[in-house]
């Protein structure tokens, strides 16, 4: 059965205490009063009152590491869906790490429509399309594993306090788990059976993101599943 | 599908500020006070082929209305009433923002607000339009033709429609043995029976101010407009908030108060129209 709520649920337009902390746009000042702009939970964290949105729209910020889905191929760049209102651009020159010659290089040889890439948001300010870069440790085309989608607002729960949730899943399944801020979780496992269990564990977090005692519940879930499935 | 307007002309920010600075002193760009409409000119009988017509100038805004009366069938659910149809056309020659094509949501809204304001109070005596109940009635086609758009099409159109209807004549006719109705085109005819005189008054909320009879630029910088329709007994016979902004109850009351006074000015303009 479910645990108790992690805090108090509030709806858009409901007044929040002036001390409640939240990022824009999840809070707005209307006529001098602080109000929630999305459905969320007001929760006590280390002596502070914080507002955690339960649903939101992912907006990229420079520095974010995201998982993108290649949607289109242009002359010198790829169009990449990053689960945001804005389609991102990955320049061929950046991906190849060298000057790019459209007469010689066929972009579809490197990244096809339907490929996933792990990339860093290099630049974005809402006036232009977000620019991606794969220059950096662990970035580039994703060649194995699966991607699970969860609402971007729930990614912090998949990560857990000081990475506790990710580490618990990794330790109990032996999989590598990478939750990207844009709501896509990359799971790469030693076996197909373990992959199924890790995916179910992430979906469990999605469903119960705002309940207390979730980490313990997830650990118990993985242990039970492994026992039941004999893996 | 209704879409947020995305190609409206840009009003320079300093111009908006200039408007607001004037409002603070209680004035408009053309020297008007906030609660005064522009100059009103009403001319009737301007079209020979229409049974009723009027040209209204409200400042630089010009609206032409023609009323055509034709013999036709009544609606099934109202066999004892004639038919009144109001249609508005934003003619492309009237403004750079108008384009050829079927009426857009603004033209449809305009005609429907005018239509409702006439219909609900029974401004036109539809019963008097019956020739043979359930079979033959007069159909009145009221066509609003916007010729020059400098704001406040609602009030200008309503004035023109009212003036045109008040001067509409229904020709004499003869019932033939076949049951057909023969309209005598050259007959003097009889005046259309009007039960109530209706005007609409449009106010706009700009910054912290409520102004009446906005011009085109004022409409663009306005948060919203409030259209209130009145009959000669000062009953409210129609209303529509138009535009994206929300309205406080306090602003509504201020707008209602201003509108009631301006309605008198419009009624007087109709009253004094040479017929």
């Amino acid at each position, binding site marked *: 059965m479910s645990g108790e709520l992690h805090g108090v649920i509030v709806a858009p337009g409901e007044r929040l205490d002036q001390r409640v902390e939240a990022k824009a746009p999840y809070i*707005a000042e209307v006529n001098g009063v602080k*109000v929630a702009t999305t459905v969320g939970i007001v929760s006590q964290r280390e002596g502070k009152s914080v507002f955690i949105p339960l649903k939101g729209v992912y907006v990229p910020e420079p520095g974010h590491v995201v998982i993108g889905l290649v949607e289109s191929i242009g002359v010198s760049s790829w169009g990449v869906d990053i689960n945001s209102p804005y389609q991102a651009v990955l320049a061929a020159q950046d991906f190849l790490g060298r000057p790019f010659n459209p007469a010689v290089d066929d972009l579809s040889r490197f990244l096809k429509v339907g490929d996933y890439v792990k990339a860093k948001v290099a630049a974005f300010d809402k006036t232009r399309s977000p620019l991606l870069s794969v220059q950096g440790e662990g970035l580039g085309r994703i060649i194995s594993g699966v991607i699970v989608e969860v609402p971007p607002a729930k990614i912090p729960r998949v990560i857990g306090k000081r990475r506790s949730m990710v580490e618990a899943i990794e330790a109990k399944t032996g999989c590598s788990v990478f939750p990207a801020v844009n709501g896509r979780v990359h799971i790469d496992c030693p076996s197909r059976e373990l992959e199924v269990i890790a995916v179910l564990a992430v979906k469990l977090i999605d*469903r119960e993101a705002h*309940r207390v005692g979730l980490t313990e519940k997830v650990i118990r879930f993985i242990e039970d599943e492994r026992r039941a499935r004999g893996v | 599908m*209704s*879409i947020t307007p*995305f190609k409206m002309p840009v009003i320079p920010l300093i111009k908006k500020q200039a408007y607001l600075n004037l409002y603070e002193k209680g004035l408009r760009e053309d020297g008007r006070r906030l609660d005064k409409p522009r100059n009103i000119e009403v001319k009737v009988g301007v079209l020979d082929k229409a049974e009723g017509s009027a040209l209204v100038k409200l400042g630089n805004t010009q609206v032409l209305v023609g009323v055509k009366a034709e013999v036709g069938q009544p609606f099934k659910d109202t066999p004892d009433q004639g038919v009144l149809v109001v249609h508005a056309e934003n003619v492309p020659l009237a403004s750079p923002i108008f384009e050829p094509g079927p009426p857009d949501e603004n033209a449809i809204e305009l005609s429907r607000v005018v239509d409702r304001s006439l219909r609900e109070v029974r401004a036109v005596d539809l019963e008097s339009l019956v020739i043979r109940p359930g079979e033959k009635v007069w159909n009145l086609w009221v066509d609003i033709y916007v010729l020059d758009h400098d704001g406040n099409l609602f009030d200008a159109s309503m004035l023109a429609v009212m003036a045109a209807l008040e001067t509409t004549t229904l020709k004499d006719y003869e019932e033939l043995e076949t049951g057909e109705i023969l309209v005598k085109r050259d007959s003097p005819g009889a005046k259309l029976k009007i039960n109530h005189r209706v005007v609409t008054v449009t106010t706009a909320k700009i910054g912290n101010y409520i102004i009446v009879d906005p011009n085109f630029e004022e409409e663009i910088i306005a948060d919203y407009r409030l259209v209130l329709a009145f009959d000669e007994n000062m009953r409210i016979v129609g209303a529509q*908030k138009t535009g994206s*902004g929300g309205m406080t109850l306090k602003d509504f009351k201020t707008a209602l108060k201003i509108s009631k006074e301006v309605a008198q000015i419009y009624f007087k303009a109709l009253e004094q129209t040479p017929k």
Partner: protein
Amino acid sequence: MGGGAKATLIREDGLRHDGRRPEELRPIRMQVGVLANASGSAIVEYGKTRVLAAVYGPREPYQRFMVLPDRAILRVRYHMAPFSTSERKSPAPSRREIELSKVIREALEDVVLLSEYPRTAIDVYVEVLQADGGTRVAGVTAASLALADAGVPMKALVAGVAVGKVGGVLVLDVDELEDSHGEADMPVAAAPDIGLVTMFQLNGVLSEDELDRGLSMALTAIEKIVSIEKEALKRKFEAIGEEV
């Protein structure tokens, strides 16, 4: 409007034809998150009136010219299903539906934080499944819930209700019979948390005093409907755990 059925609309005991008191709403039901594909969705019932709303976006529109540089645009379609009325309604958009799409869009624009998503479009689709009066105001309520369910940030929730005048009496939440035989129908939507009326129309004849009283009746009811909206939203998120 007008017509002969007035006598039956207000009964001798002062109640309405369906037994409601003048200031009584029909039973209101709401459910959030009813469609899998949409970013957000809701179904709302005012008595027999049933309206479904779905939100897609914010997203970059296919027609890339159809954007604003400093804010998102809202695209709203109010539509009645062919089977929603007694006589089949043609699915082609009528003049009435075009006007109502506009007034519903304008009822929402001031509460959605559109400036958060420049160059994008937020699509709101309102489908009337069953029409028994008050479809546009139930539509605004459903659209507001669907936007909140989609996680689109809003300054406040919006809800709507229609006030009517039947047999000389002001009544709340008119149904189809009251709408077609009454003397006035006044659809109102508002965001009570921020004190704004966002939709206001009058179809009919009222004195200034009736207009005043009708508007306050509507605003009182809207506060109640918004609190039902908040419950529906919270219920969705609270209930999730129980299903597991």
